[in-house]
């Protein structure tokens, strides 16, 4: 199994979710993160003093998939999340040693 983790632009979440469902992912987990990268942050102004906010709001999407689905998952995310502009984010893929469904105790791909 593979664990696919993507950092994307917040407003792309709905599209990514739909793309993942379309290819058969059974679930996903998302969280709010802040990212620093090529895309520059903005300047906030505070009582006349400028302050560089270096981190931008991003959404992290995590989805565990069987090995055979991994490639399609990455493709689906990439297509759905891309705007072509700097700051679109990254996709990272890891090996997943084991997965367990808490409710039933099922393991492996069945647990996903």
């Amino acid at each position, binding site marked *: 199994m593979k664990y696919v983790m993507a950092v994307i632009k917040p407003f792309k979440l709905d599209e990514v979710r739909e793309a993942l469902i379309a290819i058969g992912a059974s679930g996903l987990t998302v969280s709010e993160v802040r990212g620093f990268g090529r895309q520059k942050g903005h300047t906030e*102004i*505070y*009582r*006349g003093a400028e302050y560089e906010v270096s981190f931008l709001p991003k959404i992290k999407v995590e989805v565990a998939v069987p090995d055979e689905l991994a490639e399609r998952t990455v493709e689906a995310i990439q297509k759905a999340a891309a705007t072509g502009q700097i700051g679109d984010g990254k996709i990272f893929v890891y090996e997943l040693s084991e997965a367990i469904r808490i409710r039933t105790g099922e393991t492996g791909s069945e647990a996903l």
Partner: protein
Amino acid sequence: MNGITNRMSRVLPALGWAGVLLAAAPAFAADEPKLDSGDTAWMLTSTALVLMMTIPGLALFYGGMVRKKNVLATVMQSLAITALVTLIWTVVGYSLAFTEGGSLLGGMGGFMLAGMTLSTTHSLAPTIPESVFVCFQMTFAIITPALIVGSMAERMKFSALLWFTGLWSILVYSPVAHWVWGGGFLGSAGVLDFAGGTVVHINAGIAGLVAALMLGKRIGYRKENLSPHNVTYTVVGAALLWVGWFGFNAGSAGAANGRAGMAMAVTQIATAAALMGWMFAEWLVNKKPSVLGAASGAVAGLVAITPASGYVGPGGAIIIGIAAGVVCFWAASWLKRAAGYDDSLDAFGVHAVGGIVGALLTGVFAVEAIGGTGGLLEGNAGQVMKQAYGVIVTLLYSGVASWIILFVLKATIGIRVEETQEREGLDISLHGESVV
């Protein structure tokens, strides 16, 4: 003209016509104005409005400007000061400020509000019950030290704050209030201060600057992001200050009359002008008009019109407002940066600077037909000097006295929290609570 006659003149328009009514009621002694239910209604309301300025107004204004880990500690300061000063004012503060005494300090005849009954009045507001006058003035005594904490935010020890507030209220607020309003030497010298530009704002602002210097800068100042965690709170606070300020300024007429109405009108106009002044200045300089700037501009305008309301008309109000907005923007951004002190929430930059702008311009724009005294524009050039005299005396006395109080506290119980407490946030470290 001394402070009392000065202030008395505010109620004269009311007396003008009320007097006639009373004349028709021969049962009354002509020389003893009686309670007026309309004036009383307005002063009861004004008292509620000015209390609302401190809690929740100032609590939110300041609470929104600190980091999230310090918001509860900040609102707690307004809350605790409200309670502490209420008790001090009841016991000695009112007496020292407003009962018969010398030109430097009132007497102790009003200790524990002794002598106050359902029917007594105070000569400064002869048509309302003394109890209402006491409460109205109490709300001024409360907000003044509450303003100071803006300079101490995010690093002051809570116990030291209580000591400071108690001592400062007795040793600084009551005397200065007496000098200007209670029959003391500044009022006698002809210094005009309708609702407290000197007594409240310059007084608090300079004390704040001293406190900022004594406390030192916050950890991370100019390096970490110390920006406001919730400007929405700050806007709500500014709005409640604005609304409550009608009680502050129009209430300072002591009656529901034409002078109160004019004070309300110029308050509204100057505040609007100052908001615009700050906003456009910032827009020009920083390319974006910040919401914090608009809220700060409004407060700067409210501060500056405070001494002038009751003396100036709409035209003067617009100019005072614009001046306050632009100058306070400059003070809170350029001056603070240049001088290098960490006046966390700009108590000095807004209240002292705005108060000085207002006090001096009162001397320029005062209209005889409104407040009984004309200013520079009406040929009374000396008034600006008198105003400057009031400003300087207040800056000096409050600055030095605040320094002494803080110096003693620093040497004894300490005034600043530990470094780890400051990093963890005052909410948890001082009060054991946090906002989710």
